[in-house]
């Protein structure tokens, strides 16, 4: 019996969630030898609007490449959280930016609240790496792919010259998630 793990990354257009999806899928498929797909759905706007990117990871064939029974949902905006939470499993995990998502939808799922965007600005000096911090949080919480595999995938997918800051951001995400785990589990 093969496993199928579904991750939905949601927020607003321009937050870099499609890149996060591509990195996660590449880590699983290229560096872990699993199967993975990454798909996306966004509006006609260049920036803004609810945007989502989905990653399916499996050790078998992936027939339907979109999320339907979600294991991990990342929501970086209130709008995205409300719009996309409906397909989150009861035993799934909702990861939210604690500053952006104030109203947590009702459900049996676990909720992980982390100040992702604030950490990007305050600890790394660049709010645009919030997406990679979020990636670190997801990888630490889900353990669906190894940290090492994701680092390789980051280096192969991010623009040349930005590898260092992105790896730093990724490590920051892992630390934030580890701290949350120590405090809450």
């Amino acid at each position, binding site marked *: 019996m093969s496993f199928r793990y579904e991750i939905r990354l949601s927020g607003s257009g321009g937050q870099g969630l499609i890149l996060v999806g591509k990195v996660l899928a590449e880590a699983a498929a*290229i*560096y872990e*030898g699993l199967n993975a797909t*990454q798909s996306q759905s966004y*509006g006609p706007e260049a920036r803004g609007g609810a945007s989502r990117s989905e990653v399916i990871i499996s050790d078998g064939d992936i027939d339907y490449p979109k999320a339907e029974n979600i294991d991990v949902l990342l929501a970086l905006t209130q709008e995205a959280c409300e719009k996309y939470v409906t397909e989150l499993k009861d035993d799934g995990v909702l990861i939210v930016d604690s500053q952006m998502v104030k109203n947590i939808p009702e459900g049996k799922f676990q909720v992980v609240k982390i100040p992702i965007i604030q950490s990007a600005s305050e600890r790394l000096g660049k709010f645009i790496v919030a997406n990679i911090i979020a990636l670190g949080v997801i990888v630490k919480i889900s353990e669906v792919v190894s940290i090492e595999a994701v680092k390789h995938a980051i280096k192969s997918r991010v623009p040349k010259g930005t590898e260092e800051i992105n790896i730093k951001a990724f490590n920051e995400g892992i630390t934030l998630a580890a701290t949350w785990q120590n405090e809450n589990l």
Partner: protein
Amino acid sequence: MIIPNKNIKMMQGNIACAEAALAAGCNFFAGYPITPSSEIAEVLSKKLPIIGGNFIQMEDEIAAMGAVIGASLGGAKSLTATSGPGFSLKQENIGFAIMAETPTVIVNVQRGGPSTGLPTLSAQADVMQSRWGTHGDHSIIVICPSSVEETYYMTIKAFNLSEKYRTPVILLTDEIIGHLTEKIEIPDSSKLEIINRIKPDMNQKEYLPYKITDSLVPPMANFGEGYRYHVTGLAHDETGFPTNDPEKTTEMLMRLYNKIEKHRDDIVEVEEYNTDDMDTLIIAYGSTSRSAKRAIVNATKEGYKVGLLSLKTIWPFAEKEIENMAKKVDRIIVPEMNLGQIAHEVEWATRRAKPIIKINHINGEPITPNEILAYIKQGK
């Protein structure tokens, strides 16, 4: 962690299309980039100049279609890529390519319509336009991949069929497949079958560009090679010059039609899944095949007997295959992201011998496996 295999890539459908075009020998692209097909133009704008090919961003979609026809007459293997509104604009020139027997490949990454519609969202509503978008009686080849890997191999198939039958071929993909990133093993180029157009070997003065041969596909001379001939969208005789002669025009138009229809067994491709023991058949194509397959996996676990016929080519229509398959079941489900364009063809191919259940989306959202599963469970 494993040591990565260099030939295994995580690739987007549109990028696989561009890479496969290069592997098939494409050396000319003209287009007017449009969502959700733009990545095809983006990749080829970088890669074609490196291999000595040409990339032209044209002033509009109509001109882009004209340019790929002209390039093909000059001997190039040409490609254009578009989506709904652009596909509409290309229709007149697609007819010209059919009439003038010019091989070329047109990619339509379908999005929601009509008009500007839903630019970033998926649809499968150009099925009939791909068949009948250009005026006049004609046959056409339309191919429909449902994965990144299939996009790669079917882009090569599109070039091969266009060269083999001297005709434009349409690769009808959709936003979901075009923007899907998944695993693909890039094949060694020496293992690919690449077909090139048959060139004339007779004396230049004896060359008839539209001669009726046994294969129904006359040899094609490239402009500039010394073979002088006339190319027109008007009905023409074997020399390429216009004629109104009823016998000659019938002969010519029937040859254009039959060169595809009589070779349908060489062209039509379907894939069966779980069809050995079934009472329900799902007929699907493109991204919707993927939803259907997952629905079948889940339905089988619950004891339902459902099979899938996935159409890899849409036109010529797989009527023979569908008719045979329909005999084995008591109902047919046709999910598609339009209001039933293929379902009507299935009704016709099966003479409505079995009930046909349509599942249709026109809002840009994919048809989910759970939706299909709900229909499978109804009445069983």
